[in-house]
């Protein structure tokens, strides 16, 4: 009973947050609603006995990603402003229908096919077990993950770094010719 209440509360918060993320008109609000959703997700992890994961979720996502997002919002709001348009002409309805179809199918599949699994009642020390898993059978992906993060970091820096002169190109005409030689002058 308690588990159900917890589930429903978490689900409600999570979904409301999610719905606000996709519908809020203010970009800052969007990001904040996202933060709420992420925290709700962390709560869900706790409910699912994944404590370490919940912590990681809070730290990495709410602490890292949301902050990044906010920075990005701040950096880019000069022109677009806080208010953003949500729907493209007809795009919203189209998107809603498709998402609804997807949802319907996912639910159908889940209802029809969820394996009859019962959560074990014993309480494993999930964090320790997680550590073991990481360092044994998943050691290779784990190592690779570090490289991936390195790559992402380098990549993000490469892209975000302003090159010397900082010439701003005006918005180019459609079907612009790619690879103009004058681009070589930068750096």
């Amino acid at each position, binding site marked *: 009973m308690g588990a159900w209440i917890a589930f429903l509360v978490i689900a409600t918060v999570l979904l409301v947050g999610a719905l606000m993320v996709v519908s809020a008109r203010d970009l800052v609000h969007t990001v904040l609603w996202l933060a709420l959703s992420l925290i709700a997700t962390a709560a869900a992890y706790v409910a699912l006995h994944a404590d370490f994961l919940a912590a990681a979720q809070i730290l990495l996502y709410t602490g890292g990603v949301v902050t990044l997002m906010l920075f990005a919002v701040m950096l880019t709001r000069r022109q677009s402003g806080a208010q953003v348009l949500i729907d493209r002409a007809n795009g919203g309805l189209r998107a809603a229908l498709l998402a609804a179809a997807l949802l319907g199918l*996912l639910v*159908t*599949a*889940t209802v*029809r*096919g*969820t*394996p009859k699994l019962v959560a074990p009642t014993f309480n494993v020390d999930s964090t320790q077990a997680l550590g073991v898993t990481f360092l*044994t*059978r*998943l*050691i*290779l*992906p784990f190592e*690779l*993950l570090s*490289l*991936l993060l*390195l*790559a*992402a970091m*380098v*990549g*993000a820096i*490469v*892209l975000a770094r302003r*090159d*010397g002169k900082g*010439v701003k*190109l005006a*918005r*180019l005409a459609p079907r*612009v*010719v*790619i*690879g*103009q*030689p004058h*681009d*070589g002058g*930068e*750096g």
Partner: protein
Amino acid sequence: MTFTGIESLTLPLAVLALLLMVFLADLLVPAPSDGRQSDAQRGLGALTCVGLVGVILLSWWMPQGGLAFGGAYVQDAFATYLQRVLLAAAALGALGSIDHVDRNFPSRQGEYYLMLLFSLLGMVVLAGARELVLIIVAFELMGIPLYVLAAMQKRAAGGVEGSLKLYLTGAVSSAVTLYGMSFIYGVTGTTNLTAIAARLSLGDDQGPLLVLGLLLSLAGMGFKIGVVPFHMWVPDTYQGSPTPFVAFLSVAPKAAGFGVLVRLFVEGLGAMRDTWWPIVLVLCVATMVVGNLFALSQRNVKRLLAWSGVAHIGLMLLAFGIATVQGIGVLIFYLTAYVFTNMGAFFIVDVVGQDGSDDLDAWQGLARRSPALGGAMLIFLLSLGGIPFVAGFWAKFLLFWAAWQAGMGLLVLLGALLAVLALFYYLKVARSMFIEGTDGPAPRVALPTALAITIALLGVIGIGVYPQPFVDAALAAAAGLLGG
């Protein structure tokens, strides 16, 4: 769970070592203050290329057949074959990039090759990955540098737009993939492909969730190789990105992607072929038809080659879908031929496009301005079109051969007819080069680019004239995969 088998990781480790070398070299080389690149920096490309050649050679001396980390990674013949293809593509890509990088973003030499190597590392691991988690990580390791590389030419509007399109579809696709894999794990309770295969072979009811997982994974993978309807980023990104990178992008991720598809759907979920096969069939037809039809009206050569690439993926999908020894063997042989052919073609696109336009008009009279370039491009086009005595012909023919023996007669006919359609637009390029236009100065070809084109050309002709070793190796690799 043991740590034995580290020696099986020779190849990924070698790539990693090279990566670190380039990283360090980039850090140690003093950045020029005046905005011009130093010769030392220019050497990074050469270093990458030479290093990769070394790694390729190494692949003949390393231990084969070993498992690493409890079966998460296997260095079998299939992996080795595919890795050689990937390494070759990367080496060729690096070589062909040297001049382009020099010309367009000299200040980002190190980053460019570093990203290339990161991506390559992901691919090399993918070729031997038998563990869902490893697959997804390696997949991302392959993918993320590609987003960066696509936007490397930061000033070019198209580059960023192409990169963004690649990124958005890519992000959604990886979410879909991950979602699918979560179901596979959820139903089977394991992430090891061998274990999954073992579980499925028990004959349990697979259930809708496993089907769901399988289909979602297929969709996610389909993005990377550019299968219809997940292909729409392809032409835009190709058009916008630095051409030598496109050469790499157009072949290496496809090869790696097909490698994963084979691992996942043939090795892991082979028992469920009845489920995924009809979908692959439909995808294959759709991809071939859409790719060819869209290519038909293109006037931008990069877009044209992009769409033609989509069409080629459709054919390869057929080989994959057959999932016989012949099918898989032909698939990786096809990829081999495709690497040389497509990369060579894109390098020439780069040379011609350095004047600023990839439009067909810029190609007018190329054969007269530079007979060598014109002739080389003609051969690449013929190889793409599947005309005898060049690599593409054998690829296409063997594909049809394998497909026919698997009972795909109508698909063979469709493929053969679409190949004719494809020839229409390939010949459009040939027409520009040979028939139209007048004399003029030959476009400048830098030595590394010339070398890259020559190697690609030799590959195309070499495989075309003497395909036996390649075909035999590919078939043997496939036999090892399916037989063992």
